[in-house]
């Protein structure tokens, strides 16, 4: 087990042409990288989960973050939140294109909604990493 991990760590990085299309598609369309790599079942589960979480966030009227500068905490929260939102790929792009703009209002439902939107993007990052590992041949 330990030797297996050591071997994996010593493996050189796969050429960018091998993994980039899968990772880019995984960002743009949740689960898309897995579909490209013929892992249809896992791709469908990822697509359903990330899309479901994002749509729940929209229906809960969660707020989208915009990068802001200011004190360290404000910068960290808003920039981190924006990156999380942006990682949802086409879901984020479509919601911005269709003019979704929800102010940050008080209430636990809206608060959960904001977290759902960010977490959907972060879960998509996990899916992108998984797509990378499959494309690079480190995982089945």
């Amino acid at each position, binding site marked *: 087990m330990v030797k297996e991990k050591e071997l994996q760590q010593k493996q050189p990085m796969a050429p960018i042409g091998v993994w980039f299309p899968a990772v880019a598609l995984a960002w743009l369309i949740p689960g898309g990288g897995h579909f490209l790599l013929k892992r249809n079942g*896992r791709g469908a*589960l*990822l697509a*359903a*989960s*990330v899309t*479901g*979480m994002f749509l*729940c966030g*929209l*229906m*809960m*009227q969660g707020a989208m973050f915009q990068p802001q500068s200011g004190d360290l905490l404000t910068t960290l929260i808003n920039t981190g939140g924006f990156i999380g939102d942006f990682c949802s790929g086409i879901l984020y792009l479509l919601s911005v294109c269709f003019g*979704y703009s929800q102010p940050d209002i008080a209430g*636990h*439902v809206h608060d*959960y*909604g904001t*977290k*759902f939107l960010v*977490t*959907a993007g972060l*879960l998509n990052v*996990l*899916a992108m*990493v*998984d797509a990378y590992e499959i494309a690079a041949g480190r*995982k*089945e």
Partner: protein
Amino acid sequence: MPKMNLSHFEAAFLFSLFASVVMGVVTKRTDRDRLHYGIYTFACFLLALFALGWLMYFGHG
């Protein structure tokens, strides 16, 4: 866009479900292990949800 009005528990339950599915899918190497890990993380989420809920209830006095 239809609106959802969920309680704390319902929202946290949905959050746990979606997060567990993704964690199960991306973490392990076989389908059996993925299923087990997904169920395990979902159970951990629910356990933490109930434990923190009761902790806050008693903490409020």
